[in-house]
């Protein structure tokens, strides 16, 4: 039941729990209990909304920053990652295999705000060796959802 609930709410976190119970053939109370349990266990970490800010009047700038760091004795990358993720403007922090160590996803109001963050807060950390900032120009798809939807003519073009 767990996997089935998750695969549905991963795409639609606003689904009515009664409806979820009906389509999965379960009791509503069992669904509610299972969801609460998963929240407690940290399997379900939040219910966010995917927003295409481009379509609003709010100015936002997103960037992905590659960060190379010196791992610390006894902590590896964890303590430096924690110092970075505590900044509220940081959206996500991943430890990455390959050419650099941490990938930091950041959101700011303007280019300047993002570059200030990098120069004042990120690159000044002791263990940070270098950064490379990539500004996001356009989001085509996010969280499995296509943002840049094209108009399609739904009329069928062939004879069935």
């Amino acid at each position, binding site marked *: 039941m767990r996997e*089935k609930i998750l695969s549905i709410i991963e795409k639609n976190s606003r689904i009515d729990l009664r*409806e979820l119970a*009906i*389509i*999965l*053939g379960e009791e509503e109370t069992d669904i509610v209990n299972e969801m609460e349990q998963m929240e407690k266990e940290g399997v379900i970490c939040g219910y966010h909304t995917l927003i295409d800010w481009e379509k609003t009047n709010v100015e936002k700038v997103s960037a992905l920053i590659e960060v190379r760091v010196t791992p610390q004795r006894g902590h590896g990358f964890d303590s430096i990652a924690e110092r970075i993720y505590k900044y509220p403007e940081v959206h996500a922090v991943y430890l990455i295999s390959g050419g650099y160590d941490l990938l930091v996803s950041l959101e700011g109001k303007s280019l300047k705000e993002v570059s200030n963050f990098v120069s004042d807060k990120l690159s000044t950390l002791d263990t940070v060796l270098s950064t490379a900032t990539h500004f996001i120009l356009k989001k085509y798809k996010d969280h499995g959802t296509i943002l840049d939807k094209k108009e399609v003519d739904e009329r069928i073009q*062939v004879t*069935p």
Partner: protein
Amino acid sequence: MLVTVGGSEAIDIALRAMVDPGDEVLIPQPSYVSYEPCAVLAGAKPVIIELKHENQFRLTAQELEDAITDKTKILILPFPNNPTGAIMERKDLEAIAEVILKHDLFVLSDEIYAELCYTEKHVSIVNIDGMRERTILINGFSKSHAMTGWRLGYACGPKEIIEQMYKIHQFCIMCAPTTSQYAAIDALKNGDEDVQMMREAYNQRRRYLVHAFQEMKLECFEPFGAFYIFPCIREFGLTSDEFATRFLNEEKVAVVPGTAFGDCGEGFIRISYAYSLEKLKIAMEKLEHFINRLRAEK
């Protein structure tokens, strides 16, 4: 085995290969629209067996026995069923097989919805002792893999019959589209997970519809296979045709009148849940409006 242009071709050429003029072909109804005309075109006499709501639209040994004459040659076995969603379990098939063997008949088993069984795994009649030698099994990619437009199906059966079908196949259309055959090979190699995913999605919609009809107090037997549901609309005092036509005109939703699948489909409509849950929800809202209006009219 013979690869055909959809299950449709397999049904047609199997009948043409097997029947002689005047042979009787037993066709349980409600069922898919092509069996009866194909039997007629092949020169056979279609004999209809009316499946009963109270038997969950399964074929019983008694119904079969009652329809058999000394002209009977083939039974068409259409399960999981379009339009009712009925299935036949092993015990049901064993009872049928006994009658088939007793009267030395053939079976044309249209199992195109075999992958779409929701309560238990599909059992084919060829798995019952003595039936493999006298069964033409039909399947295809239209339903299991949602590849309807690729036009690919197949028939399996005794060599003597398949050879005759092959002749007709060669003269009529040469071969099933090879592009589709390559696609189908890939579907068979790599598509199991997708089939599983689709089955789960259909099952969710099936449960949703069964529940929606209960809420509307619309009499409906629970379908266990295929992707159709077949509610009864007798309470409204309209024919299936009138119901479907008014529903289309007044709410802009298309359903198929039960009579499309045989006269005994009168009093039922067929709803397909191959569409998305979102669209089905809209359709159910409209259906509820519609039947509330009909109930108020009475």
